[in-house]
């Protein structure tokens, strides 16, 4: 019996309790803060489940982008009318339905063979040919690269969607002041170094394009908040190039290796490592630019032109 069991039980109970509290607490701001804490606890649980890569992604996205997005939305929608509540009869029906779905999932979970051999043997067997030494990176960028390409496309689609429903700029919030500007001068380079380090680490240990990109995206958010970077209309072309670069380079490489005897996404083993690094570097920049743009929430436009008459 491991003493960590106490930690695990407390953390598991905290996760369920937090999930309940996020949705039950009356104050919407408290709900958002609880949700951010839920993200922290999730990262810890994933470390306990021997998934440091996932914990790193959750830490970077959860601590960086999600909280900032939610807090901005809270400000923008303050004072919005609350819709009417669900009638109790519907609640009970939906409750029974949700319980049935969860119970079905639980039966499948408890009935499934645990510790069963998954694909780890196949992954380890082909790792030498994949071009990287870290299994998760091999899965993401080589074995299941098609999924990852689609994920980059989803990010691109998200930015297109956000730009097309964007509202006119808000009243400008006051800049956070000189102390923050000083902090940004120190923290932005540090964050850039950490983001690049995570990208580089991905070849041999947990890290990689998403984690690096998420850290760099959060750096973009810090810069936007500090007004170290103010999106201007003439940056639109550059921004669009950054959004599309990841998808474009990834797809071009995937197709280019597909000529001759190979199929698309089948990198020649000798070139696998440089190709993966190229894709990862460009995808990192795309993810960072996209996440910062999702936070900014609209196309940069000239301040002098009124969006609405």
């Amino acid at each position: 019996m491991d003493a960590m069991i106490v930690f695990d039980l407390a953390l598991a109970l905290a996760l369920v309790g937090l999930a309940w509290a996020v949705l039950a607490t009356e104050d919407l701001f408290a709900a958002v803060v609880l949700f951010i804490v839920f993200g922290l606890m999730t990262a810890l649980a994933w470390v306990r489940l021997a998934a440091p890569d996932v914990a790193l992604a959750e830490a970077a996205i959860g601590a960086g982008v999600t909280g900032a997005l939610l807090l901005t939305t809270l400000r923008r929608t303050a004072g919005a009318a609350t819709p009417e509540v669900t009638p109790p009869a519907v609640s009970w029906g939906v409750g029974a339905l949700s319980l049935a779905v969860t119970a079905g999932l639980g039966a499948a979970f408890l009935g499934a063979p645990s510790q069963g051999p998954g694909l780890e043997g196949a992954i380890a067997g082909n790792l030498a040919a994949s071009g990287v030494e870290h299994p998760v990176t091999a899965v993401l960028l080589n074995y299941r690269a098609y999924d990852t390409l689609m994920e980059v496309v989803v990010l691109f689609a998200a930015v297109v969607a956000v730009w097309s429903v964007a509202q006119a700029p808000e009243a400008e919030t006051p800049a956070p002041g000189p102390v923050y500007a000083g902090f940004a001068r120190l923290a932005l380079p540090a964050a850039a170094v950490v983001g690049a380090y995570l990208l580089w680490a991905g070849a041999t240990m947990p890290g990689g394009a998403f984690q690096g990109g998420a850290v760099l995206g959060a750096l973009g958010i810090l810069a936007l908040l500090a007004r170290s970077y103010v999106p201007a209309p003439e940056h639109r072309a550059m921004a669009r190039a950054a959004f599309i670069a990841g998808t474009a380079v990834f797809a071009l490489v995937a197709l280019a290796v597909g000529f001759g005897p190979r199929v698309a996404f089948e990198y020649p083993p000798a070139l696998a490592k440089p190709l993966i690094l190229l894709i990862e570097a460009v995808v990192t920049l795309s993810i960072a630019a996209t996440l910062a743009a999702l936070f900014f929430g609209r196309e940069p436009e000239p301040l002098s032109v009124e969006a609405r008459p």
Partner: protein
Amino acid sequence: MSPDLIYGLAGLGVFGIGLFRALTLAAPLRRVLALKLCAVGASFLLIVAAYREPPGAADAVPHALVITGIVVMVSAMAVALALIHRIAVLEREGGHD
């Protein structure tokens, strides 16, 4: 009791709470949070499926799937929040007319 069972059950609980609340809550921002919780609960089941008792190494495929899922979730959330913002602005304008 092993970590995979404990966190698997916690994931199930989070999934159930998220599903129920996503269908019953009225405020749009909370519904987005509920859907995200639902997704996290499902991710827990994937990560638990990949877990092996300490000497063994975890299965990397579910890990990669969940990392992909985290990035897709944040994109979906950003779009949902932009829509919520738009709805709020339109309602505010409608109220003024």
